[in-house]
């Protein structure tokens, strides 16, 4: 079942409307009204915005999902922009964690952009989330709309998390809005050699908080983890993994690798490696970001 925007009703919320978020009233450059599909973020709950590159790496995908899932399962609402890449993974991660997620769009709420996110639109609305846009109902996705909607994303949230960003990117625009609005900025650190992490690492340099785990953000928001989940043990120390499984796991990183390279690195034949790769995949320790390529999965 794909998403049909006309199955859901719209509301226009003016500044005078009692539902107009208090958070937005604090700033001067906020819209005088906006269209809404679904519901608005619950002001009683904390919200975190997660943004990042459209063209992200599998590391970024993993990180965005992991953070969004964990935050959501601790009662945090996730706000993002419903673009491809990190934005989509943040929404998906939140839904996986059982939370509701909200998207601020750069087009009208009746326009599905990008088309590939059609299913995600539907599940956001069906799971109690909402779509927000200051543009006309059927306004197309114009390139200059996207940076400006970022100010609403940051304004609606209590903290901003940037997962992957190049040196010149929309996520950095969101960061500068957050800075103006006085919202704490968290950044997932990346490799210094990776152009996708150049923007995020430079933010760290300028004093943003490094987000090493979702706990860092939860602590800032003043949320104490309700049930202490068992500490995420690395499979390398997990006794349920065999010796060869660990050996193979050591050669797999978050850079996706084909079967051949893994065989070479562990000096084992294909039949053996393939058996173990399937086991590891079934155990959830690794996954295939693209068919035939293997990368570490963060649970």
């Amino acid at each position, binding site marked *: 079942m794909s998403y049909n925007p006309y199955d859901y009703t719209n509301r226009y919320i003016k500044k005078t409307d009692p539902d107009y978020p208090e958070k937005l009233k604090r700033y001067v450059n906020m819209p005088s009204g906006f269209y809404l599909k679904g519901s608005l973020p619950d002001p009683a709950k904390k919200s975190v915005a997660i943004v990042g590159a*459209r063209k992200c790496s599998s590391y970024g995908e993993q990180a965005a999902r992991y953070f969004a899932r964990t935050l959501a399962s601790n009662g945090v609402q996730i706000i993002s922009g419903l673009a491809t890449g990190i934005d989509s993974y943040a929404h998906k991660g939140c839904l996986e964690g059982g939370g509701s997620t909200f998207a601020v769009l750069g087009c009208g709420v009746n326009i599905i952009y990008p088309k*590939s996110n059609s299913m995600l639109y539907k599940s956001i609305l069906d799971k109690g989330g909402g779509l927000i846009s200051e543009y006309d109902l059927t306004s197309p996705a114009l390139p200059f709309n996207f940076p400006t909607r970022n100010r609403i994303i940051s304004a609606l949230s209590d903290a901003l998390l940037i997962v992957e960003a190049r040196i010149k990117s929309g996520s950095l625009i969101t960061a500068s809005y957050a800075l103006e609005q006085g919202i704490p900025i968290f950044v997932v650190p990346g490799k210094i050699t990776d152009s996708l992490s150049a923007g995020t690492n430079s933010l760290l340099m300028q004093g943003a908080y490094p987000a090493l785990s979702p706990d860092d953000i939860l602590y800032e928001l003043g949320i104490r983890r309700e049930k202490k989940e068992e500490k995420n043990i690395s499979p390398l120390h997990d006794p349920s993994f065999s010796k060869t499984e660990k050996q193979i796991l050591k050669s797999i990183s978050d850079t996706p690798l084909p079967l*051949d390279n893994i065989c*070479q690195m562990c000096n084992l034949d294909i039949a053996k490696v393939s058996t173990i790769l*399937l*086991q590891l995949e079934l155990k959830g320790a690794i996954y295939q970001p693209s*068919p035939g390529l293997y990368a570490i999965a963060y649970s």
Partner: protein
Amino acid sequence: MFCQILSATILGISCEPVTIELDISSGMPVFVMVGSLSSKVRESQERVRTALRNLDIYLPPKRITVNLSPGDLKKDGTQFDLPIAAALLTALEKIPKDSLDNCMVIGELHLNGDIEGVPGILPSVIKARELGISTVLLPKANAAEASSIDGIRIISLSNLNDLISFCLDTSSTKYDHIPKSNAHSTVKYPDFSDIKGQQSVKRAALIAASGFHNLLLSGPPGSGKSMTAKRIPGIMPDLTRDEQIEVSQIYSVAGLLNSDTPLITQRPFRAPHNTLSIQALCGGGRIPVPGEITLAHRGVLFIDEIPEMPGRTLDMLRGPLEDHTILISRTAGSYRFPANFLFVAAMNPCPCGNYPLNSCTCSPFEIQHYHSKISQPVLDRIDIRVDVPAVSYDELTSSSDDPISTSVLKKQALKAFNIQKERYRGTKICFNSELSPSDIKKFCHMTEESKRLLEHAFLKMDLSARAYHRILKLARTIADLDNSDIISEAHISEAFCFRNQNLFKRSR
């Protein structure tokens, strides 16, 4: 004065006998030809008339009627020149009346009386033998091709004078074709040891060749996808004599046999460019001729850059990949061509070829669009998908030959082939890839552990019923390569690694 000579016409890749009846009677001087003739056949009278005149044989000023019987059969081709000339010579009593009894005559004429080769000799000779004909007279250029058929006398002629002198003394062996001892030169396939490293690709090629599983190679430019594909026919089991004749018949009809390669002894490797037309792929024309899928019969059809292929053309493969044959219907009739080939396709992982590395410059939409150009029904028919990684510098420059060579792989493939032959004795199945779901139940026995593993993976990975069957077929071949009657856990896991996953499933 009436006489008749036997010849033949090609229909698809089979052959129908045609009798040339010629009558010279009193009346207005005219040369009439009847019997559902195409323009190619009709032109034959000019060639025959001129060729005879150049031998100082003049047609009498009488009514000459030629009928190609059966009259309702559409006839095409230039092979009727020689039999018509032979019939005329008989009618003119230049050659003895009974000299061409129990003979089949085929050949095209030049205006000076020289005889030119024609396509489709092999099926014609086979038909002649079936009909109990003792002698076939054919152009010298085609003699080598015909000599691969035993039990029939082949007379090779280079011009009309040869025909006359043969007919004057049919017992002389002057024109008998003597096959050269090593006429069947074997074409060597390139060797797998040329490819350095690439273990998983070679393994996938071996599994594909052993169980006749279609194969999709995906990898960056220059990683050796085409090199791999070219080497696959080399590890497939040799063609049997019957298969050689079967394949050669196709090539004979297509006019691709010559005196250097009178018989196709090796598995064909066809690599048409992806811009080819539907007719070139499937066969076509007013009188259909075999297309690439038929020319690849019992061999490999390789298409590079498969997402660049027009979708309509690619989708034409759906039928033949399932039925191993193609039926082409035209007003002239329906023709069934065999098309049992191993399909090997190659593609880049994305338009720029570097996905999933960071140097990839394609947007997610571009990548998805690129993948979506291959239609799902075609992908469904490809059992194995393997990534061909870029070759490292060390592998590239290593001087030692790779230990995995064609001869090593072929030995393994042959073993698996014999196991399959033994198992499917008495059924229509030849290879594991042809198993239907009910056959899978019958032939793919698993250990308890592998059943559990498969069940676990099936639930966890959300597999479709089709994917389940595909994995089992693949695991059957892997078990055969391992000389194991029962499918173990290791076989299932390996099949999982090589399975053709849904390319579009980007997110989990």
